[in-house]
């Protein structure tokens, strides 16, 4: 196994520490340096542990089968891109990946439209029963998915929506709504009243005010909801496992377990398949990591 690269703090970053500066100047400098070095070594070590599994999956996904099974090298000596072709065709990821993209795009658009409308009403319109609706939404967030998936399946069977794209998307939207409505509502609440009132005086309809004035103002909220829900929908597994029988309808997470049970693929092919299913998430995280990390921290503490 490789040693993690060590980052040593440049000496000019030395900070005078209250306790150690009391002693001999020279030894205390050395001590501060050692302490800082240990401090950053720990940070790097933990970063290494966090990244090691995905890095090893990516490296293994381009290795030849013999090389991987023999364990002769951790790094690929030749790049076997054919693994990806095999996973794409034989593993049927040519079907699973577009399916996942479709479910994610449609469900996120659905969530954005429905949640922003509901969030707007709850933030800006006074109406009888608003407190009841708010309470209902908060209460629903408490119902845990693992305890209700059997019943969701039963309802879908009753509605002839089991093993259909529509059924999966509708449940995904419904699952994402409570948190998204709360996020959108908190963005609408912060907007000034004046713009809205001016538009009403100009004769705009309520929907016009919402669509042309309020929605553009709440763009950061829409972005936060889109990123968090895209992550959630792409990674969803339990419902996909329960709802789908047809390979042609399955998203990548379901497809990945399907691939293992149906084909027992070689490890390097399976790693390529895993990489295919995770690459879109890595790209999303690289571009929107601030949105994601902040959204998660705020969403939980609110």
């Amino acid at each position: 196994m490789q040693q993690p690269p060590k980052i040593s703090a440049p000496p000019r970053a030395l900070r005078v520490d209250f306790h150690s500066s009391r002693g001999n100047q020279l030894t205390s400098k050395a001590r501060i340096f050692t302490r800082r070095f240990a401090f950053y070594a720990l940070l790097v070590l933990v970063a290494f542990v966090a990244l090691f599994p995905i890095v090893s999956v990516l490296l293994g996904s381009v290795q030849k089968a013999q090389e991987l099974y023999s364990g002769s090298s951790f790094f690929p000596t030749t790049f076997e891109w054919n693994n990806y072709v095999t996973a794409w065709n034989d593993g049927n990821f040519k079907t699973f990946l577009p399916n996942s993209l479709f479910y994610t795009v449609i469900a996120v658009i659905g969530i954005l439209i429905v949640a922003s409308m509901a969030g707007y009403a709850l933030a800006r319109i006074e109406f009888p029963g608003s407190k009841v609706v708010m309470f209902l939404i908060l209460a629903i967030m408490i119902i845990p998915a693992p305890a209700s998936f059997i019943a969701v399946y039963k309802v879908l069977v009753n509605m002839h929506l089991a093993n259909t794209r529509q059924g999966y998307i509708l449940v995904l939207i419904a699952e994402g709504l409570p948190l998204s409505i709360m996020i959108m509502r908190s963005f609408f609440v912060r907007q000034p009243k004046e713009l809205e009132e001016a538009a009403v005086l100009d004769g705009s309809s309520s929907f016009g005010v919402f669509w042309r004035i309020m929605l553009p103002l709440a763009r950061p909220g829409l972005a936060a909801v889109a990123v968090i829900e895209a992550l959630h929908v792409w990674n969803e597994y339990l419902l996909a496992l329960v709802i789908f029988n047809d390979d042609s309808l399955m998203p990548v997470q379901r497809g990945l377990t399907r691939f293992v049970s149906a084909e027992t693929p070689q490890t390097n092919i399976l790693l390529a398949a895993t990489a295919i299913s995770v690459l879109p998430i890595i790209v999303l995280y690289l571009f929107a990591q601030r949105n994601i990390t902040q959204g998660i921290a705020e969403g939980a503490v609110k």
Partner: protein
Amino acid sequence: MASTPIAGKAKPRSFASKPRHRRRGLEAYLFLLPALVLIGVFTLIPFVQGIVLSFQSWDGVSTDTPFVGLDNYLRVFQDNIFWSSMLNAVIFGAVGLVIGGAVSLGMAMAVNKAKRFSAFFRTVYYVPGVFSVVVVGMMFSWLLDPRIGILNRFLGAIGLDALQHNWLNEPDTAVWAVAAVFVWYHWGFGFLLFLAGLQDIPKEYYEAAELDGASPWARFRYITWPDLAPVTTIVSILTLLGGLKIFGTVLVLTNGGPGYHTEVPTLRIYKEAFQFHRYGSAAAMSVIFGLGLVALSLFQLWISRRSNA
């Protein structure tokens, strides 16, 4: 889970006339209609349906679901595997709580203190949290594979062959291997919350304490720890809930095995329904399991309300 204080301050607003007021109310419900319909059909109806189904017998296909009274519950109460799966879930939650909590708090303090690269470390530490349960399962079934897994190869390479195990298939190691994967997967969540909490503590507190000559331990004990208390509570409960709900990762890593050593409630419910076709008793398990989860969530809401007030 989020809880916003219910509907801001009710502002006194003058309405031109009563009909207009009523029209605004109608409009509000038009805006809410899609959300209410979707939540009603796909969340509330299943909620009721689940409770009803727990008193019925259903094979998953037929339209006939006869009532069987408390039969499902009696079966579940005698199902030792279900109860041991509940115990496993508690073990995963507890390990995540203690070890994951300690790691995430420690690393949050370190990153908060780091003068350089703190944004980089923050981003990297949350990386495991963005993977799906299936991907995490796939990664670690490979890394922990007895023959070609990197862990055993590493142990062999440094001469510690004696420590090699068939990690996921030996009763003694399987539970702890899954727990370790759970900690690796989830600690970044607590880390983000702790880091946000630490950044909210005023720097002046520490400066004042340092002038008074307080030791690092005293600063932690009398400033950091009490100020973080609300965050610690939320992280603890959400981690515990995460441990109880664990499913996909276990399905991929061990499928509950060897034997039933790593069985967890959600997996048990899934098998009861989709392998044994006893949907009624699966629903009864869901009700019992769900009650536990709801109790924990309510406890969390109560705590966070109290600390906000």
